[in-house]
C-alpha cells in the first residue's frame, strides 16, 4: 500500500512541476501551453541521446529556430534598425544557439559526465522554448485565448512530428542521476526518487523567491495582472512572455530528465504527462500555485492506485474524476463578469 503512495508522490511531484509551469505561462501570456509535453520529451530524449553518444536533432532545431527568430526580429524592427539592437538580436538568436550546437557536437562522442549532459539538454530545450514564444506566440499576443489555444495545438502537432523525426518511434531510457539507494522501514528510496523530491521542492522554492523578490519576477506578475498597465510602467511584455516560456521549457525538460531513468519515454509520451499537469493546473483554477501542487500529488496517487488495481482504466479514471471537480469549482466560483477578448 505504502509503496503505491510513494510511487504516486514521485509521479505527482512531476505533475506538480508541470502544473506550476502551465499556470505560470497562462497567467503571463494567456497561452494554454499544450506543447509543455513536448518540452518534457525533448528534455528527456535529448538527455538520453547525449548519454548514448548520439547527436540530438533538438540542438539543430534550436539553431534553426534561432535563425528564424532573428529574421522575425529584423522584420519587426525593419523601420528602425539600429546596430546595437541588431547585434543583440544576433547574439541571442544566432550566436548563442550556434555555440550550443557546436559544443554539443564537440562533446557528443567524448562521453562527458552526466551533469554536463543534463546542462546541455536543459539549455537546448530552454532555447527552443524562448524561440517558440518569439516565433509562434509573440505575434499573436493581442488575440483571444481561443486563437492562442489553437496556435498552441498547432505548435504541439509540429513539435510532436519533429520529435518523431529526431528520436524515432523507439522509446528511450536514460541513466539515473544518482545510483545510491536508502531503505526506511518497508520503503526503498532510490537516488532517483530522492532527486525528484529534492529538485521539485527546490524548484518550487526558487520560483517562490523569483516571483517574490526579483525585479523580473515582479515584472512577470505585473504582466499577468494587467498587460497594458505593465507596458505603461516600462515592462516589455514580450520579454515577460519569453521569460515565462524559458521557465516553462526548463521545468518541462527537467521533469523529462527526472523521469526518463524511471520509465521509458517515447516521442509522444509527453502529451499525456503534460495533460495531467494541465488537469492539476485546472483544479488550481490556473491561478493558484499551492492548490495546483496539491492537486498534482493527488492525481499522482490516484493514478498509482488505479494502475495497480485496474491498469486498463488508468487514464479513464483520472479523466473521469475531473468532471465532479470541475463542477464543484465552477459552482463555487463567484459569478464574475468575464471580459473576454
Amino acid at each position: 500500500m505504502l509503496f503505491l503512495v510513494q510511487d504516486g508522490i514521485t509521479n505527482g511531484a512531476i505533475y506538480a512541476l508541470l502544473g506550476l509551469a502551465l499556470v505560470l505561462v497562462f497567467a503571463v501570456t494567456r497561452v494554454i501551453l499544450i506543447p509543455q509535453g513536448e518540452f518534457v520529451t525533448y528534455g528527456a530524449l535529448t538527455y538520453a541521446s547525449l548519454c548514448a553518444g548520439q547527436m540530438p536533432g533538438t540542438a539543430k532545431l534550436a539553431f534553426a529556430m534561432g535563425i528564424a527568430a532573428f529574421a522575425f526580429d529584423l522584420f519587426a524592427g525593419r523601420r528602425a534598425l539600429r546596430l546595437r539592437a541588431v547585434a543583440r538580436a544576433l547574439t541571442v538568436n544566432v550566436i548563442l544557439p550556434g555555440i550550443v550546437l557546436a559544443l554539443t557536437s564537440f562533446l557528443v562522442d567524448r562521453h562527458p559526465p552526466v551533469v554536463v549532459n543534463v546542462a546541455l539538454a536543459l539549455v537546448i530545450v530552454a532555447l527552443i522554448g524562448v524561440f517558440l514564444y518569439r516565433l509562434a506566440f509573440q505575434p499573436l499576443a493581442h488575440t483571444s485565448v481561443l486563437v492562442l489555444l489553437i496556435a498552441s495545438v498547432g505548435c504541439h502537432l509540429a513539435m510532436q512530428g519533429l520529435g518523431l523525426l529526431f528520436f524515432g518511434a523507439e522509446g528511450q531510457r536514460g541513466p539515473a542521476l544518482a545510483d545510491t539507494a536508502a531503505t526506511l522501514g518497508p520503503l526503498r528510496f532510490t537516488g532517483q526518487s530522492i532527486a525528484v523530491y529534492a529538485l521539485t521542492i527546490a524548484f518550487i522554492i526558487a520560483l517562490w523567491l523569483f516571483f517574490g523578490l526579483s525585479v523580473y519576477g515582479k515584472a512577470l506578475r505585473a504582466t499577468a495582472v494587467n498587460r497594458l498597465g505593465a507596458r505603461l510602467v516600462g515592462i516589455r511584455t514580450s520579454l515577460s512572455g519569453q521569460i515565462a516560456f524559458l521557465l516553462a521549457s526548463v521545468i518541462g525538460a527537467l521533469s523529462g530528465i527526472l523521469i526518463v531513468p524511471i520509465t521509458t519515454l517515447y516521442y509522444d509520451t509527453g502529451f499525456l504527462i503534460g495533460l495531467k499537469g494541465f488537469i492539476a493546473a485546472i483544479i488550481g483554477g490556473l491561478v493558484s500555485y499551492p492548490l495546483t501542487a496539491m492537486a498534482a500529488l493527488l492525481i499522482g496517487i490516484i493514478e498509482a492506485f488505479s494502475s495497480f488495481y485496474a491498469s486498463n482504466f488508468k487514464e479513464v479514471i483520472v479523466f473521469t474524476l475531473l468532471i465532479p471537480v470541475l463542477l464543484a469549482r465552477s459552482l463555487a466560483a463567484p459569478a464574475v463578469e468575464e471580459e473576454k477578448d
Partner: protein
Amino acid sequence: MRERLPVLIFALVMAAIPHLPDMPPFWIVLLDNIGLSALVAMGLVLLTGVGGLTSFGQAAFVGFGAYTTAVLTTAYGLSPWLTLPASLLVSGIAAVLLGLVTVRLSGHYLPLGTIAWGLGLFYLFSKLEFLGRNDGISRIPPLAIGSLKMLDPGTIYYAIWAAVLIAALLTMNLLDSRTGRAIRALRRGHIAAEAFGVQTPRSKLLVFIHAAVLAGLSGWLYAHFQRAVNPTPFGAQAGIEYLFIAVVGGAGYVWGGVLGAAIVVVLKEVLQSYLPLLLHGEGQLEIIVFGILLVALLQLAPSGVWPLLASLLPFKPNAKRPDPSLKLHGLARTGSEGGVLLQVDKARKQFGGVIAVNDVSFDVQAREIVALIGPNGAGKSTTFNLITGVLTATSGAISVNGKKLRNPPPQEVVKLGIARTFQHVKLVPDMTVLENVAIGAHLRGSAGALSSMFRLDRVDEAKLLAEAARQIARVGLAEQMDQPAGSLSLGQQRIVEIARALCADPVLLLLDEPAAGLRHMEKQRLAGLLRQLRDGGMSVLLVEHDMGFVMDLADRIVVLDFGTKIAEGTPAAIKTNPEVIKAYLGAAA
C-alpha cells in the same frame, strides 16, 4: 430576398461544379468531406465564435447522429429518411443532457469539461456491443430518392451541400433576430443581457443544442456517405480539428465555418498526398508542416480568413431601415400611478467584513429625478446592483410600487419597469447601435428560435427594430445607428446605453454616471432629455460625479459616504449641508 443574393450565387456555383468537364472524382470526394466538416464547424461558429462557449466535444455529436441512423437502418431496416429526424433528435437530446451540466461551467472549465465527456463518449462508442465496438457498423444503406440511389460521391454531393446551404441560411436567420441578439450578447458577459430580461442559461443551452443538431446532421450524412461507421472519426482528435476549422475560417462568421473546412480539408489532403513524394516519406512530415502552417495562418489572419475574403467580395450588408410607423405595445404593468415608486428601506450589503452599503433608506417618487452622490467608494454602484438584482442584499427591503422584492433575479426586476445603464459600458462592440439598443426591447418581443430560423418573426422583429430606432433618434444618435457600437466614443456609448434602457419601456430609469465623458453641449442635451422624460411621467435615479450637472437637474439628492446615507434634500440644501462639505472636502478648517 436581395440580402440573400450572394447565397443564391454560391448555391448555383456549387450546383454547377460536378458538371464541369474533366472534374476529377477525387475533388468531388474532397468537396463532400468539406461539406460534412462545414456543417459541424457552422455549429461551432455559433457556439464558440458568437456565443463564446468553447467546445472540444462536437465530434461526439457527429457520432450520435451517425450511430443512430446506422443502428436504425441496419438492425431495424428503417428508411434513411425516417432516421434523419431520429438522428437529429438523439443529438439534440444528448445536447440537452450534456448541456444542462456543461454550460453552467464557467471560463476554462467549460472547454475542459467538453474534452472530458468527448473522451468518455468516444470510449462508450468503442465499447458498446450493439454499436459494434471498435469495428463499428457496416453495410449501411445509401440515401435514395425513388429509384435514384446516392451511391457515388457525385450524387450524395447534392444532399450534403443542400444541407450546408439550408443550415447556413437558418443559422444566419437565427443570428439576425431577437433570439440571435441575445446569443450574440453572451460572449461579452451576461450581466447586461440579463438586465434586459435575457435568460442567459437558456440562450447558452439553445446554441449548444443548435450546434449539436448540426453535428448530428453531419453524422447522418456521413453514415450514408461512407456506408459504414466506426468510433475513430468521433474522438477527441476530430473534436479539436473541428475547432481548428472554425478558428481558421473565422469563428465569428457563419461562412467562416465553410471556408475553414475548405482550407483545412484541402490543406491536409495536399500535404498527405504530395509531401511524402517530395521528401521521400520521412516520419510524420505532413503533421509538422500542418502545425506550422496553422500557426502562420493565425498570425496572418487572427480573426480568421473569412473577414479578409469578405472585404474583397462586392457584397456589402445593407443597412437596416426600420419602418417608423410600426408601434410596439408597452408592457402591461400592475401598480399605482403616482406616489412612491421605489422604496429602499435599510438596505445593507456586506462583502466579508466590508460594509459596502450600511442600512441605507431613501425613496423615489413618480415623476422625480433623484441623484445619488458621494465620493468614490461610497457604495453608489453597489446600491444600484442591489436594486436591479445583480447583487442580493444582506438585509433590508426594497419595494417597487409598494410591492416588496424578495431578491428577484435581474430578469424579473426589468419586468417591473426598472431599466438601467452601467458605469462601465456594457455594449456588444461588434453589433450595430441599432442591434444593441434592440436588446433593450427583448421582453417586448416574443419570437422564439424556431420562428426566427424560418423567418416567421418578421412582424415582431420589424416592430422591435422600429422601437429601437425611435429611441436612438430620441437620444440624438440617429446618424450613428448603423455603426458598430464599439466605434463610438465612450460618451456616445453611454448615450446608447440610455437608449437601450428606454427600449425596455421603463417607469424608473437607473443611470450610472451617464454624463461621464460627455462634452458640455452633450451634457446639456442629456439634461434636457431627462427632464423631458420626467415630464412624460418617468422617474430617474442617477449616480453622478459632475456636481454642476446634478445640481441643475435633480429634484432631490441623496448623499452617501462610506456606505452610509449622510444627507438628503433639495440641491440647495445639500450645497450648504456641513456633513456633505466635510465628506467631500475633509474636516472644515
